[in-house]
């Protein structure tokens, strides 16, 4: 395991009494891409701004490369940042935009070195032909390439990428993501990549941190998160489709869902920290099988994607969406049956969303 490059401890920040960060703890290791995944307003941008030193925090500390930079000036922190929307400096042309960090009083380089680095970075992002253009004449994708080039032209300790690809269309996004990944592999850089896009996060990141309401709920590889989602919210954010939730009851050492034929033995849930009573049962859609018999449901919607199809199934105690493994055809309104695979599923507190099952022991 690599040494931590960035450590955030208990970062708190409130804007006019409204909390933006409510104790963010996060570690980014050297040479990894960590995706900070969360919905809009979860505190992703604030976390990045606080890391860069562009936002003062009320409490907490920031360590960069082993050094406490909590109170340090933003210009001294040796990070690069790419924002989502506005990125280019309109008073400079493309070449000068990319060279901008290398001409600053702090990171100044000789002009021939700047020319070399700008040329190389532009080549890397395939924008060499744009170097002498005005920023106003570029397309959205070109602009974002230029702004990524401006971040990459320097070799800072940490790259902060705030939804760098969100404004782009799907094809461009996938292309640039792959390029970022390749550049990362080549240069062994450390990146903190904020996004609300689950697919984007798993495609680019080594590890994922789930953030919501100014708090990091869980950090780990996607496999680790799948194996043990720390909160119901994590299940809702992860997966495609995301986790299915059912209103269930713990009774007689089993988990029972009203209206289901299937009863799930409590022993299949690892160590369970739940008294008998109502719980929320979360199941990854991949662990649900559409079968000839079992728990009844109704096909609410069919989404035919050509190479595969997905269905939404309504039941009396919850709704789930899943991608079908076989070529069986369902029609909207059909009755259907499904079974949950043995040992699958997680139990969450209905009100707090905290994970109640898998408390140590078997996973």
């Amino acid at each position, binding site marked *: 395991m690599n040494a931590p490059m960035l450590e955030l401890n208990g970062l708190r920040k409130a804007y006019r009494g409204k909390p933006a960060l409510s104790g963010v703890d996060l570690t980014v290791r050297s040479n990894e891409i960590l995706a900070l995944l969360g919905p809009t307003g979860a505190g992703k941008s604030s976390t990045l*701004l606080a890391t*860069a*030193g*562009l936002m003062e925090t009320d409490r907490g500390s920031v360590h960069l490369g082993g050094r406490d930079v909590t109170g340090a000036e*933003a*210009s001294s*922190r040796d*990070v*690069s*940042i790419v*924002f989502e*929307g*506005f*990125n*280019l*400096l*309109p*008073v400079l042309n493309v070449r000068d935009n990319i060279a*901008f*960090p290398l001409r*600053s*009083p*702090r*990171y100044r380089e000789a002009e021939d070195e700047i020319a070399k680095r700008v040329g190389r970075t532009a080549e890397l992002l395939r924008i060499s032909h744009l170097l002498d253009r005005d*920023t*106003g004449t*570029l397309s959205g994708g070109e*602009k974002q390439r230029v702004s990524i080039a*401006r971040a990459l032209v*320097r070799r800072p300790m940490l790259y902060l990428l705030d939804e760098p690809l969100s404004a782009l269309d799907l094809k461009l996004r996938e292309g640039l993501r792959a390029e970022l990944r390749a550049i990362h592999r080549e240069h062994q850089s450390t990146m903190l990549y904020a996004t609300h896009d689950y697919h984007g996060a798993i495609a680019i990141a080594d590890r994922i941190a789930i953030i919501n309401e100014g708090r990091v709920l869980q950090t780990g590889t996607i496999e680790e998160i799948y194996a043990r989602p720390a909160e119901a919210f994590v299940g809702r954010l992860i997966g495609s489709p995301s986790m299915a939730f059912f209103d269930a009851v713990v009774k007689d050492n089993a988990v029972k869902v009203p209206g289901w034929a299937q009863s799930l033995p409590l022993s299949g849930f690892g160590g369970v920290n739940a008294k008998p009573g109502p719980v929320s049962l979360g199941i990854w859609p991949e662990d649900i099988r559409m079968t000839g018999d079992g728990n009844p449901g109704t096909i609410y919607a069919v989404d035919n994607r050509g190479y595969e199809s997905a269905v939404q199934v309504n039941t009396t105690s919850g709704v789930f969406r899943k991608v079908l493994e076989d070529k069986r055809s369902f029609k909207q309104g059909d009755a259907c049956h499904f079974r949950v695979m043995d040992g699958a599923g997680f139990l969450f507190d209905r009100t707090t969303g905290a994970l109640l099952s898998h408390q140590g022991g078997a996973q």
Partner: protein
Amino acid sequence: MSAARNKAIDHLGRWLLLGLLLIYTVYNLGPILWLMISSLKGRADLFAMPPTWIFTPDLTGYQSVFGVGAARESASSFGVFDSLVNSVIVSSVGTTLAVLLGTLAGYVCSRFDFRGKGDFLFFVLSTRMLPPVAVLVFYHIMFAKLGLADTRTGLVLISVFANVGLATWIMKGFFDSVPREVEQIAIVSGYSRLYAFRHLVLPMVKGGIAATAGFCFIFAWNEFAFSSILTTTQAKTLPVKISTASGATGIEWTQICAAGVVLIIPVLIFFYLIRKHLLMGMTFGVLGRS
């Protein structure tokens, strides 16, 4: 049949519109044309009834305004040229200072949160709501005690005071339209905020500065109430001088008309020079975001 009628109605509407526009134009530009013609007429032509349309141009009005030629020595022209100089100095220095201060204050109000910011902005704006007449007497006494009465310095101070609030508000609007990321990128890249302000943000609000200067200049150039009370002889501005111009032979109409034309011209020139920025600035869009 009906198509022909529609066409006729269309024609009628067109002519009606044209007529209305003509009336509007005459209403607006007529007095200015009258003023310009009158400024070139001698006393006899000026009062001729019916008005003469063909006459020998008489330049004494302009001569006295600019302090040249024979009219310079005449008693009636005393001080008109000086008041033009006063107006130019007071308006340009006042505008420059107001825009300078307003730009800095507008930037601070746009980018930083500080205690009482809302109150400060309201206070600054309220200086423009104040009817000058309400406080004239007190300014008169204050200026007399401070030795600022009848000085250009005093009028410059008044001009700055009256316009800095407006300048702050307009400039804040322009700075608000510049994304904060501009400075954030600069600071993370190792530059100071001051560098970002001077070299990145200011060029982006050039149009805004020009528009603000335009507004401030007009207000300063046309300012009448304070100048009329706070000046007596030395620092009289052109608008005040025009309103009080009378000589040994009664009211010098030719001179007044010439001064009126001179009063209009700087505003026209100024706006001609900044028209490009003004159009850009008036939209408050500043420029396309990148």
